[in-house]
Every structure is written in C-alpha cells, then in structure tokens.
C-alpha cells in the first residue's frame, strides 16, 4: 500500500474537481497528479524530499511526489532558528529541498517554490508498493530535543481507510487549512481531503480576521483549527457575523479551554464541532468527540455529561485504547493513568531510536488521562510534565483547572520546580487580567484540592510561551524557574 493510491483514485474518479486553492490559483486532482509525477521525476538517487515553506500549491504535490518516487517526505518548521534548522537539515541529508530560503548545507539541493518546471513529462506509474516510510516528521519537542517520528505508508493508509469514505464529499465542499505542512494535521488534511474529494483552501498565515474573511469569500464548509486559533476567532467574532456556509469544524493539537468551545458553540450554533485527539506518532486522529456529543454535553445539566466538552471523545473504530497505571495494571473508570493505544495507523517509531511499541503492539502515548464509565477519554497532560512532590504524582492540569476559575486569571501553567525538602514542588505562572494576591491563589488551591498542590512559588507573566501551533512550552517555563 502506498499513499499515492489516494491521489491516483482521486485523479481517475474526479480528475476535474478542484483539489487545492491558494488565493486565486487552484489546481484539479488531474493537475495535482501531474505535478506530483513531476516532483517524483526530480528524485535521481533516493534523495528525500524536504519542504521548508508555508503551505502552497506545491505542498501536496511534494507529499505525493515523494510517495511516487518511494522516498520520504520531510516537512520542516520554517520558524526554527538557523541553528535548529541546520541541525535538522543535517539529519535529513541527502535531500531535495523545496524552499525559497537561502540554504547552504552539504547534501541538500534546494529548488525554489516558484521555479518548479511543470512541463515535466515523467510517467512513473510503477510506484513502490511496500512498507516504506512515507513521511518523517519532527515532533514539536515541547519537553526536549525534537524526535523524528516516521510514518509508514501502511500507517497513513490505515488511518485514511479507517476514517474516510472515498468521494464522500460533495463537489461544493471545501476545507480551510491553516495548520502548517510540518504538523501532522497538515499532512492528514491533504490525504483525507483528497480521498473524500473535498477541496483544500490554504491559509498560510493564520489570523482570525483572514480566516473569517476567507470562510465567507470561499463559502468554506469545513475547517480544522488548533485551540489557540479558535480562541482568537471567538475573541474577534462580531455578533453580526454568521458564517452560514460553515458546517463542520474539527479541532485538536492541544487542550481546548472549556470556555472557548462553549463560546464557539454559542456563536456558531449551526456548526458541527468535532474534537480530534491524536499524536504525530499515531498518524493523527485516534479519538473523536463528535457533534452529537458536543451538543448533548452543552445542553446537559448533569455535571458528568457536561464535562464531556473537555473530553477527547472515544476511540475511533480501528483503534484500541487502554489506561494503565504506573505498575502496568488496567485502570478503573475515573482512575488517572497512562494512555496506551494500538492499531494499524499507530507507528510509534522514531528515526535512530526505533519502535516504542511493546511486544503486543501497544504504544505508550506518554499522555496521562482517564476514561469515564462510558469510555470517554479525558486527557490530563503529558507524563513528562507530572510534578513528583515527595513521591506523590501531581498533574499540572488539575491545579491549572482550579486556578483558572479565579476571575482575574487569564492563563496559567503549573510546572515542577526544584525543592530541597520534597525534591519537586509546584511552581505557578499566572497571566492576570488585574492584580491578584498570592494568598487568594493559595487559598483557592488549598480549598479545592489539597495542601500538597499549593504552589511554593507564584510568578506573573504578560503571556505564556506557546509554540505557533498552540502547544504550551512547559520546558521554557521550567527553565525560567531554574534561572
């Protein structure tokens, strides 16, 4: 199985449909197929295909072109520092790199985004049909040095075949894509949109205003957003705005604050919201909280149903999911533990490190969470972020949720700080809308939780450090406390 099958089928069954659009330029599935073959013909000696740019019409062609040529597609983060970027380039060499940046690195041959000759007549229909690696993605590295996750053709195909029906989208449907090419959601969007026949409209530089303008102009029906993006949209939302074309909004890639999703549902009552939980290592989505779940939670007066608005939903049919405690036993409902998943779309493999799957194929996501009695998953945070105070495991999320209820708290993060007596203790960083006394926070945590959760240090910042796709950089906060 090879992901090129997706484009091959799309080009054959709906070749004249618009596939991708950027500003006033668009290409059909036939044209995308032709472009992909052109990209593939550039590969002479099994060089990887790198991509260092914002989203553009060439991006899907580079992804599928690499698949045709049987080499890895490696999208790189264009926001990295020169030093970080050079380190990653060395790791992917030798490669053909699509970029408009001036890059000098041994083994890297750059090709400008605008100069690709599209009159190439390469016909490469005998693409490799094996278990090769399709995509190499550097993880965001919020807890340490970025790892390079490998996704095989069979992982990505299992995800698409397990979640998308071929040509199920109407010809009028379109998805607004504002996540960058180096994010798993940006890759998954190309594959699932091509398979369903839904036009991708690219928005390379997200702003709430540009996003809303484009929804109206292009009569967008679908969109994927990371939580920070939805937060900005609801903040900028004008009450006169209705976005009538918009039908489905999926979100994921980080924790969605309950207040943001509730506000979004109020502002856009006609929109179906889906929370998609997944990791790079699992070829995107493994759990979904669907539109019906959103509405019943939103309208429920039962606290256990209502809190499902903060849930990651339930595993998709092709995924098995269990929660195990630190001793390796299966947790009971409501018992916090480590999230393990299994399924064909799960890669769990890193370059130079190998597979992290256990002997039975289970992958430790390193996310901590619990299931409720109906099997809804609640993600608490990363296992690496757990604060171990005197042998007791404290999850930052629990403290953050309580502190966030203070009316003057706009944003908050709890991290581990070194403590002579306890080994680690709770350090708190707060973004306040108006001044707060430390005592108010300490009292709040002590009454709602218990004394071990009380922060030993509280700092105030103008804003918390997030990366561009909305992931909180706890490492940066921890370093800040260490200084």
């Amino acid at each position: 199985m090879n992901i090129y099958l997706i484009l091959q089928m799309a080009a054959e069954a709906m070749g004249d449909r618009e596939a991708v659009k950027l500003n006033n330029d668009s290409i059909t599935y036939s044209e995308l197929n032709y472009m992909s073959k052109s990209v593939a013909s550039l590969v002479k000696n099994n060089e990887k295909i790198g991509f260092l740019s914002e989203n553009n019409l060439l991006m899907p062609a580079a992804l599928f072109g690499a698949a045709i040529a049987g080499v890895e597609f490696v999208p790189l983060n264009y926001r990295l520092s020169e030093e970080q970027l050079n380190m990653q380039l060395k790791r992917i060499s030798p490669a053909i790199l699509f970029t408009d940046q001036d890059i000098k690195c041994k083994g890297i041959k750059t090709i400008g985004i605008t100069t690709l000759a599209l009159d190439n007549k390469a016909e490469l229909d005998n693409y490799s049909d094996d278990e090769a690696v399709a995509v190499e993605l550097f993880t965001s590295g919020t807890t340490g040095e970025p790892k390079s996750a490998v996704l095989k053709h069979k992982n990505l195909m299992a995800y698409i075949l397990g979640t998308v029906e071929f040509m199920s989208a109407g010809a009028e449907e379109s998805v607004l894509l504002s996540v960058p090419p180096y994010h798993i959601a940006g890759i998954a969007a190309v594959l699932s949109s091509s398979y369903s026949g839904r036009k991708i409209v690219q928005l390379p530089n997200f702003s709430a205003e540009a996003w809303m303008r484009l929804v109206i102009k292009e009569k967008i029906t679908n969109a994927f957003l990371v939580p920070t993006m939805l937060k900005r949209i609801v903040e900028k939302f004008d009450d006169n705005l209705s976005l009538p074309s918009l039908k489905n909004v999926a979100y994921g890639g980080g924790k969605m604050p309950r207040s943001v999703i509730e506000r979004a549902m109020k502002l856009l009552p006609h929109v179906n919201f889906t929370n998609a939980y997944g990791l790079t290592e699992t070829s995107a989505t493994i759990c979904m909280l669907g539109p019906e779940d959103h509405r019943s939670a939103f309208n429920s007066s039962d606290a256990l149903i209502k809190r499902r608005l903060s849930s990651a939903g339930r595993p998709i049919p092709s995924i098995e999911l269990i929660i195990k405690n630190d001793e390796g036993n299966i947790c009971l409902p409501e018992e916090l533990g480590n999230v393990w998943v299994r399924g064909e779309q799960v890669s769990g493999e890193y370059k130079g490190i190998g597979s992290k799957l256990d002997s039975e194929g289970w992958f430790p996501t390193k996310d901590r969470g619990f299931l409720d009695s109906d099997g809804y998953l609640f993600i608490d945070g990363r296992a690496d972020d757990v604060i171990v105070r005197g042998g007791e495991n404290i999850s930052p999320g629990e403290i953050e949720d309580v502190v966030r209820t203070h009316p003057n708290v706009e944003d908050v993060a709890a991290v581990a700080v070194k403590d002579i007596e306890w080994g680690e203790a709770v350090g708190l960083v707060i973004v306040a809308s108006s001044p707060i006394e430390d005592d108010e926070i300490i009292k709040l945590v002590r009454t709602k939780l218990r004394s071990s959760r009380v922060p030993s240090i509280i700092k105030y910042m103008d804003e918390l450090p997030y990366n561009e796709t909305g992931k909180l950089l706890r490492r940066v906060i921890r370093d800040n406390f260490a200084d």
Partner: protein
Amino acid sequence: MTQIFKPGVKLSSKVCKTQIMVLRIPAIELEIFCGGLPMEVGDPDVLGEIQGENNGTLVGKRYTDETETMEFLCTRGGEGSISVSGHKIDIKAAKKLPSSD
C-alpha cells in the same frame, strides 16, 4: 488457478476496467473473479467477454464476504462483479465518521 493472496496486492479484471486492492484476506488458496474470469496483477491488453449476471463495481467502495474474513477496496470501477470461489461478495456498508481534519 487458486493462489494465496497478500494484503496490498492490486488485481485487475479481465472483462472490464475494474481494479481492486486486497485489504484483508485469509492466507489460504483462493481464486478471485471479476465478471466470471479470474483477476490478475496488471491490466490485460485485451478485454474478454463478461460472463453471467453482473452489477458492476464502484470506485472507493469496500467489498467483503458474509463473515467479513476478506475485504477488497475498489480502486477503479467497472461493469463486472467481484466473486471469490465459495464466497458471496457484497458492498460493505460505510461507517460514517465526522471529518476530523
């Protein structure tokens, strides 16, 4: 002639444009037909005569047997119907999931 098929293999019809990919199949000797003639790897140069009653295949649809021990993805549609020695093959009902990306 019967043979053991592997998942991922693509088979072409000898009577129409139908092409399928094997997604799941038991590791036993089987023969897969389309329009009455055995399917093979690679498109034929000349199409043969379609045999018996055929409903055709639809691109993108999954085809499975009664007990769902085997599953095929139609990668190109045609006029012939899929059959497997000793098994009844039908379209598999789609499980509709909300789009997540």
